[in-house]
């Protein structure tokens, strides 16, 4: 089986513990030596809505969810109904054996494993919610997995609860395992058989990556107003603040959040905030304030389906142009976008440096899928990271001028309390910081600020990453979390390459131009309706990408859709 990719899906109502069961399953897979990718779907409701988590796993690296489902755990009827079509021939289905779930429609196609989940849970002393562990136990039995991992993970997951709860869950899991072993002996392939000496791999999502990356990167202050899909970042930041010595503060709204972060940064603290598009609307004024006052700040913008409240719990890539152009007038903004959790980890650390080095706001664009979906990675290696606070002026100088003109656009920054007279001013100002409307001061300051982008392009901007062969029949262009399904799809196409764009401002015009102008066939892939990246590329390079694969329904691309598109191009050719 080696490099084959399998998937298991767990579905049920919101509140049935789907997410935690899925995460446990994926960690079992990881500990057993597999690569995984977890994809989760849930509505903007607390209860009752349909939740589903899918773990895709393989001995090879897995880059994204896949469409076919090899194994289904159905905690409710809806799971069967909604995902019937995804089931492969011979897929296994574990479901509640109490007559309530109707499996007639999958009878012929699938292998049915009815398990009295609630009954077993009750016998173990647990409530209905414990069913998920019964099901996990049964699944492990069928897939040849190691029960020990499940025991460990239940232990770790419930470590904050009392020992009795752990016990009940473990007992239930074991009973589920035994039930399957007894009743369905040798009915399924051992897809999850433990490998020898598996390398250790983290199971990490973008939320973990951003929060922990920020902590590693020396974050000192974060002010945040909760908003899906970034709210879990604040939970992680809140939980670890005392230990790591930074401050997390919940603001009354996003306007306050960014202004508090700016105040903190002005005072000398490494600062950030996080939000989604709707909250970013409210930050746009502060965004430019940071640009104009030259105060570092990092904004993590987690995209979800817009406009308006839109699709709060679904993903999108519709805010690219928004973050590139919001706020009146021209000022230097750095905008970078991560393609997966590992990139997000390194980018947030980098963003904290960039903001301070260039004394300007930095946006890290991520999206709901990237933030929520776990993937296996080797432990992040940040040994090469160095804190760079840029031109910090910490002496005392009565002649200190905050906005002194400079070739690279960057003026030495000081902090309050050192004795220098420091003026930060959102009005146009002279080099001292005092309000000024003269042509000379205006031009000097506007141009000084904008020169930072040139400096950044020279010193820090990263070229897009090319995956696949240097020369290819089809060149895919995309960005953000589309990276996953694209790489997954490319496994089958040695003559397709992928240009993954990570810097949007400054934009690596030359590198993009060079790569695209030699491409034989260009395909742009985006999760929005207007091909925002393609527009940017045309504006910057003149290259008009004619073929677009767009999707704006909140769901991620599946590699199958990309393969289908590639095939259709190949046929045309």
């Amino acid at each position, binding site marked *: 089986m080696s490099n084959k990719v399998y998937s298991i899906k767990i579905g049920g109502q919101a509140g049935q513990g789907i997410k935690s069961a899925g995460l446990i399953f994926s*960690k079992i897979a990881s*500990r057993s030596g597999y690569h995984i990718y977890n994809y989760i779907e849930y509505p903007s409701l607390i209860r009752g809505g349909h939740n589903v988590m899918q773990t895709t796993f393989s001995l090879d690296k897995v880059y994204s969810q896949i469409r076919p489902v090899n194994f289904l755990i159905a905690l409710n009827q809806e799971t069967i109904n909604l995902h019937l079509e995804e089931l492969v021939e011979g897929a296994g289905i574990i479901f509640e054996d109490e007559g309530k779930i109707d499996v007639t429609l999958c009878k012929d196609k699938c292998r049915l494993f009815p398990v009295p989940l609630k009954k077993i849970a009750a016998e173990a002393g647990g409530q209905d919610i414990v069913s998920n562990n019964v099901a996990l136990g049964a699944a492990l039995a069928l897939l040849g997995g190691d029960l020990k991992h499940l025991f460990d993970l239940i232990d770790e997951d419930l470590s904050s609860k009392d020992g009795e709860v752990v016990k009940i869950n473990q007992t239930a899991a074991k009973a589920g395992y035994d039930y399957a072993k007894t009743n369905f002996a040798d009915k399924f392939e051992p897809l999850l058989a433990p490998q020898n000496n598996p390398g*250790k*791999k*983290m*199971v*990490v999502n973008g939320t*973990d990556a951003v929060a*922990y990356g920020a*902590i*590693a*990167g*020396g974050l*000192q*202050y974060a*002010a945040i107003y909760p908003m899906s899909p970034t709210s879990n970042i604040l939970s992680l930041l809140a939980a*670890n*603040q*005392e230990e*790591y*010595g930074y*401050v997390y*503060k919940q603001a*009354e*709204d996003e*306007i*306050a*959040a960014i*202004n*508090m972060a*700016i*105040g*903190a*940064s*002005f*005072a*000398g603290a*490494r*600062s950030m905030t996080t939000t989604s598009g709707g909250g970013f609307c409210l930050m746009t*004024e*502060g965004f430019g*304030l940071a640009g104009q*006052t030259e105060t570092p700040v990092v904004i993590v913008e987690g995209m979800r389906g817009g406009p308006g409240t839109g699709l709060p719990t679904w993903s999108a890539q519709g805010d690219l142009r928004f973050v590139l152009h919001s706020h009146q007038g021209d000022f230097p903004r750095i905008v970078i976008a991560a393609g997966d959790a590992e990139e997000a980890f390194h980018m947030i650390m980098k963003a904290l440096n960039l903001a301070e080095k260039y004394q300007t706001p930095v946006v890290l664009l991520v999206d709901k899928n990237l933030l929520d979906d776990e993937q296996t990675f080797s*432990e*992040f290696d940040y040994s090469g990271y160095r804190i760079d*606070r840029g031109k910090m002026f910490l002496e005392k100088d009565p002649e200190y001028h905050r906005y002194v003109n400079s070739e690279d656009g960057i003026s030495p920054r000081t*902090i*309050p*309390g*050192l*004795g*220098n*007279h*420091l*003026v930060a*001013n*959102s*009005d146009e100002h002279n080099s001292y910081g*005092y*309000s000024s409307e003269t042509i000379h001061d205006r031009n000097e300051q506007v141009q000084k600020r904008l020169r930072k982008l040139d400096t950044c392009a020279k010193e820090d901007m990263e070229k897009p990453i090319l995956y696949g062969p240097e020369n290819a029949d089809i060149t895919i262009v995309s960005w953000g979390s589309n990276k996953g399904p694209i790489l997954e799809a490319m496994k089958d196409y040695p003559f397709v390459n992928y240009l993954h764009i990570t810097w949007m401002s400054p934009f690596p015009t030359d590198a993009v131009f060079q790569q695209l102008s030699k491409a034989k066939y260009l395909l742009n892939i985006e999760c929005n309706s207007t091909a925002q990246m393609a527009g940017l590329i045309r504006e910057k390079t003149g290259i008009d990408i004619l073929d677009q694969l767009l999707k704006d329904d909140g769901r991620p691309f599946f590699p199958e859709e990309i393969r289908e598109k590639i095939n259709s191009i190949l046929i045309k050719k």
Partner: protein
Amino acid sequence: MITPAELTTPNFPNWCPGCGNFGIWAAFKNAIVASGWDNTNTVFVAGIGCHGHMINFVKLTSFEGLHGRPIPVANGIKMSNHRLNVFVFTGDGDCLGEGGNHFINAARRNHNVTVLIHNNNIYGLTTGQTSPTTRKGFKSKSTPEGNPDEPFKILNLAIAAGATFAARVYSNDIAGLTNMIIKANEHQGFSVVEMLQPCVTFNKECSPTFFTDNTYKLPADYDPTNIAKALEKTLEFGPKQIPVGLFYKVDKPTAESNYPQIENIPLVDNLVEKRDITKLLQTLY
């Protein structure tokens, strides 16, 4: 210690002659000199409005932000370096129109900053529209037939929101204002000082004579520690019935005192360092 001369900047105030901002300017400088505030220990943040021009006229570290947003900036500063005295200069429009949400929520959280409200009952810098403190019926550029709206009672609102220090002073009572600015800063918590400020250009009603004629000092036996009384007293406003003085003061933990990680040393006094997060990453296996 800073001298008055050292506070001088190259810019002479360009407020209209007779503007109450001159009194505030003088009082603030007095308070600075008297208290030994300087660039080693003090910062002020200003909103946008005539009041906001203050940063050009006092040589002390300052941040002029966006209209309506000086309070959150000040909150961020104070949390990052709570050894600093942090002042906010804001207007009635800046603080209660554009910035009302920050005002009430920062009061609630009791950030340890001093908010000085230039209450001229008008939008000065935008040349004379009504503000949230303009009296009903007032004729302005935006209300040629008279203001349809009731004004806020700033201090009543401040106390209801959670401010732990609430006072009112007339801007041209320079000695009184100097004193009150010092007191407000001494108070540990969210201090609000409503400064009755004549705008001689756009609010001819709230003139210096109006304020001298209609204000009176809170009686010596007034007890500023009783919140119910303070709420009642701050409702008072009318001809000959504008009390000035300290209406309310109570000691409560400040927002900044709730964070153990900055109990001993201000946040910014820590070196920014790469942190070892091995422990956190361990939880991901």
